[in-house]
């Protein structure tokens, strides 16, 4: 089967810094793929490149076997296949328009009558546990967790086959992050969506992804099946990263 996303020898420099350096990744279809690494490791840059929002200096990206092309027509075409959920969903909602306006935009892109879009939206909102009234709200009137759901609803409305989520649980409390993760799990199972999760939360990626890569300073340090990758990392950096994760079990205080 063709890979959902293939990245071949991607290279990108911002001045002196290498944002991406010979990055090659194959993301298989229908699975969940994790990209982990610290800030500045190039995770988000790679995501932007996969979405065609960032031109590469060298290298190639293929979405479902089709090479990524620049230009508005190609972007429109691609929007139906790949959809992003950005890290700060509230920041990607216009503070001056209601959620409804944002959702209608999707209808315009899909060349679908607004009534039909709206009908599908109501179904999706129900799935995500959002009240219908959210449509008529402004971004500042909804909570952070709701804003993230709205971003997911918008992405799903386009009926993509690949969903790329950048730090989906960042800024959420532990009591609600589970809810969002369960939701992503349900969606990918029900819709057979390829889910790419970019996160610094190693514990989360370990549980939801089949395969993952570890990035550092624009390079892929290590990659492979999550089970062996987390159980016995081969690279010292990966080991260091995993060891730094605070563990609940080892409380060696006890005063």
């Amino acid at each position: 089967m063709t890979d959902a996303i293939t990245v071949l020898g991607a290279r990108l420099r911002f001045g002196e810094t290498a944002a991406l350096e010979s990055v090659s990744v194959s993301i298989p279809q229908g699975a969940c793929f994790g990209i982990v690494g610290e800030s500045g490791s190039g995770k988000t840059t790679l995501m932007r490149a996969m979405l065609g929002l960032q031109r590469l200096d060298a290298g190639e990206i293929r979405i479902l076997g089709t090479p990524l092309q620049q230009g508005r027509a190609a972007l429109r075409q691609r929007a139906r296949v790949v959809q992003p959920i950005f890290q700060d969903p509230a920041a990607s909602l216009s503070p001056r328009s209601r959620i409804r306006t944002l959702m209608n935009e999707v209808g315009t892109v899909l060349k679908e009558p607004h009534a039909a879009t709206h009908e599908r939206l109501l179904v999706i909102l129900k799935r995500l546990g959002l009240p219908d009234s959210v449509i008529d709200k402004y971004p500042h009137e909804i909570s952070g967790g709701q804003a993230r759901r709205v971003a997911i609803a918008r992405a799903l409305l386009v009926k993509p086959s690949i969903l790329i989520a950048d730090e989906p649980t960042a800024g959420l409390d532990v009591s609600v992050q589970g809810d969002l993760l369960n939701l992503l799990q349900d969606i990918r199972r029900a819709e057979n969506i390829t889910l790419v999760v970019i996160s610094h939360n190693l514990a989360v990626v370990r549980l939801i992804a089949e395969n993952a890569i570890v990035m550092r300073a624009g390079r892929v340090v290590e990659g492979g099946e999550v089970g062996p990758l987390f159980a016995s990392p081969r690279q010292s950096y990966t080991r260091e990263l995993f060891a730094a994760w605070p563990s609940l079990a080892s409380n060696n205080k006890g005063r």
Partner: protein
Amino acid sequence: MAISLRDLSVDYNLPIGTAHALRNVSLDIQKGEMLGLVGESGSGKSTVAFALMGLLANNATVTSGTAIIEGREFDLTKPNATAPLRGRGMAMIFQDPMLSLNPVFTIGTQLIEVLRRRAPDSDRKTRIAQAEDALAKVKLSNPKQRMNQYPHELSGGMRQRVVIAMALLSEPALLIADEPTTALDVTVEAQIMREIIGLRDRIGCAVLLITHSLGLVTEHCDRISVLYAGERLESGSVRDVQRQPGHPYTRMLFDCEIPIDRERHADTAQNRFTVIAGELPDPRRRPPGCIFNGRCDVSFADCAKVVPGDYPVAGNAAHGARCLRLVTP
């Protein structure tokens, strides 16, 4: 010389009514000890820090509360009650180090400023040496060069180290760290926590660590207090609370944490995550009975009527929780 906070209550006056952010919260921290104050967004944990530091917003009113710091008692309901302690008896590390650093002055100038306030009689040369020494102690590379740099020239982790160095120089009796590592990477987080612990051990101060991460608390703190919707639901030693949570909320919070070594289903779509269903109560109208009633999985009829007191857990006076289950046979 313990730090003691008694019956702190804070209200925020909002256009939609008065929100009770904190209700009779008490905390005790021994010298040389680190207390982890955990709670979700909206639980009021930062309000505790701001009330202690006297940094509350204009629309906030402290309706009750006293603090005992270094043997002196402060009535927190009075404006600027703890002003004499700022920069001497108390220091604070914020989530965003840029909030504590002035962008137009060099690191050196800002460190020396602390010393000028603390020891007005010392001369400039001594101050510079002390400041460089502090930077070296928090393991910032090239202290001499850093002294002449501006905050924007440093990374987030380096800036947080500078703020810790500032705290070190002011030798506080109480150090408040409000989400000090939230904006940092895990590897840097571990280093910064080590520096905070190093500072505590060096000057023997009490540390109040405010965080939403139970992982950080169980790894680094001696005691833990759990805050929910402005009320302290549980407190005790980290070991006791972890072994036997006295309040269902604490137990549920621990269940929501995702351990890195949790059992992993090979079909990853099968891995599920724990959630605390429901929402925070309206801060303007406290529901009768237990504040956590409604989200609790073991509540019974009395929970909706009786406000629980602070009961010892397993007969341990140093471990208390506000849950009626503890006194119901």
